[in-house]
């Protein structure tokens, strides 16, 4: 598969009165055509900011992309003019946000919101746009689409609104959809419905998907490849199987150990990651995870380790990866 999106050394910072927040601190990754890539991490690790950076939706002031390249199908999105990037948004790359309750405009009907993207990007007549909108609602599993099209967001439940959001994202047949915590606000049975729908549609239509989430279970079920983020950096990258079966970074390992699992004998005690995530205004050159890390050495204070292969396309950013590998081997 050809590479669709290539992010290189992206740095996004927020200049606040409390100091410079290094929200995204030099991340690089790629997304192939039709592939589902997950960005996983806890609150404040920079996963959402990195996604907003792709579409240049970072509000200035206080935020700014200070360095890096985002190549989408060959063009660097960061060099485009405002008009040009507006042509990309919603057309080639679209977005599904977390909050289905606030991301639709309450005073516009579903029809107005769905057809807006179509008429903005294509020379279609209102009738054609309406026809396409009905088709889209049908595709995302909303019954009686002709009637529902005329309704307003408050007529829809959370799960149904998220379906509308997905229909909007698919309207212009984009090549890439960025879904930022698409199911976090939903109940588990609805979450399952929405995720199955997204998986099914992206596979069928050949759309690439970046899914941003903190839910490790969701990632395991739906992602081809996974990037684990911590304090603005990608600390481990690999296939879902790599990350879950052969984690090679102390943070990933700790994260996996800290969730209670339904398919395993119950542990006497959970094994949490001690301490708190770092303050992003106070980061130094060292590894940001070192205060919480069980494998830290002197070297971790000096520099952030490079993201290097630990076998094939499985990458880890840890000075002690050899020691960690050995430790995991010994336990088994």
């Amino acid at each position: 598969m050809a590479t669709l999106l290539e992010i290189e050394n992206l740095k996004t910072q927020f200049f606040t009165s409390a100091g410079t927040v290094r929200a995204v601190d030099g991340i690089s990754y790629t997304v192939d055509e039709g592939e589902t890539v997950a960005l996983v991490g806890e609150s404040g690790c920079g996963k959402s900011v990195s996604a907003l950076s792709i579409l240049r939706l970072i509000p200035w002031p206080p935020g700014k992309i200070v360095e890096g390249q985002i190549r989408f199908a060959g063009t660097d999105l960061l060099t485009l003019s405002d008009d040009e990037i507006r042509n990309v948004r919603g057309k080639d790359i679209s977005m599904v946000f977390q909050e289905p309750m606030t991301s639709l405009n309450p005073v516009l009907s579903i029809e107005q919101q769905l057809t807006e993207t179509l008429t903005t990007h294509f020379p279609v007549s209102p009738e054609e746009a309406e026809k396409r909108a009905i088709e889209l609602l049908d595709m995302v599993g909303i019954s009686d689409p002709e009637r529902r099209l005329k309704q307003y967001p408050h007529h829809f439940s959370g799960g149904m609104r998220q379906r509308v959001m997905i229909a909007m994202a698919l309207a212009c047949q984009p090549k890439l959809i960025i879904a930022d915590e698409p199911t976090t606000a939903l109940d588990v049975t609805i979450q399952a419905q929405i995720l199955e729908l997204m998986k099914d549609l992206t596979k069928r239509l050949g759309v690439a998907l970046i899914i941003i989430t903190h839910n490790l279970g969701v990632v395991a079920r739906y992602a081809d490849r996974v990037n684990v983020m911590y304090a603005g950096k990608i600390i481990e990258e690999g296939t879902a199987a790599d990350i879950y079966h052969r984690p090679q970074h102390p943070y990933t390992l700790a994260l996996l150990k800290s969730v209670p699992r339904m398919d395993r004998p119950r542990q006497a005690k959970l094994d949490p990651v001690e301490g708190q995530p770092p303050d992003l205004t106070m980061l130094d050159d060292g590894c940001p995870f070192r205060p919480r890390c069980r494998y830290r050495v002197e070297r971790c204070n000096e520099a952030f380790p490079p993201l290097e292969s630990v076998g094939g396309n499985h990458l880890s950013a840890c000075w002690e990866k050899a020691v960690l590998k050995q430790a995991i081997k010994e336990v088994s």
Partner: protein
Amino acid sequence: MSPAHAALAAGTAKSNKPQPGEILVDVKGLRMYFPITSGVLISRVVAHVKAVDGISFHIRKGETLGLVGESGCGKTTTGRCILQLEKATEGQILFEGQDLTKLTQKEMSPIREKIQVIFQDPYSSLNPRMKIGEIIGEPMKVHGIITDSAKRDRRIAELLSLCGLDPKFSDRYPHEMSGGQRQRVGIARALAVNPEFIICDEAVSALDVSIQAQVINLLEDLRDEFGLTYLFISHDLSVVRHLCHRVAVMYLGKMVELADCDELYDNPIHPYTRALLAAVPIPDPVIEAKRKHEVVKGEVPSPINPPRGCVFHPRCTLAVDSCSKAIPEFREIKPGHWVACTEV
């Protein structure tokens, strides 16, 4: 088994066998209907939201009962009724044999010492204008437990360190703390009056996984140390399995299944419980690839006008004609395993 799996599985298994103690909380036929009114000058009741519609359960001393279900199923309202923050429409809530629904505000006051609550949102459940020390000291003052301020400060410091916080935090304000730290403050405040029974309403849901595990461990340690009884309200089925002795599943104001924790997770009987468990993704791509993903259709109907008969029948795969007519009886099909379904 892969190496990481072995590393992950390290730690001894624990069984959450039910506790044999005496019954502490006994809820009988609880109903909570919220009226919907219409009209500006002369308001009249046009309908009711049946938030909780006739549920019964008990909690033994030292036991943790999990209450699970999706948004709007009535689990939080049940907790609020026990706390007497809502006046129940019907039913009894016995605490140590005393019916709380019959008590006046004044009679309830000494009982509030024994029943405490930990809320979901650590950002809105602490007063932003009070220092942490004042927040934790307030319940002691209100209930007249420790009137001497020097003694109270010592107790505040003790509670803070018990909950894994530096005693120096007592001079700080909530905005200076992270979500996990605030939740620890919420726990310290609940413990300040030496309660017997704590209602944890989604107490760990707003926290990140690494912090969530810390707070779960804290709740468990406190339970063991002080012999606390918990009602653990949550939508996270993995956390409930880890913490609870028995689990009750609610759907649209009704209880659909109640069993010992292991029994419920190993042999779920009610179609809704089964659907709920199947919907939880497991953090393992190999297992996920093999699992069948049967997605339950439709959405939760409105509690204003719930379906006739069994409330789950419009979404149920086992539904037959009679399901839409008669309300299924909540029956004990194995010792300790209760289900409200006629077709299993």
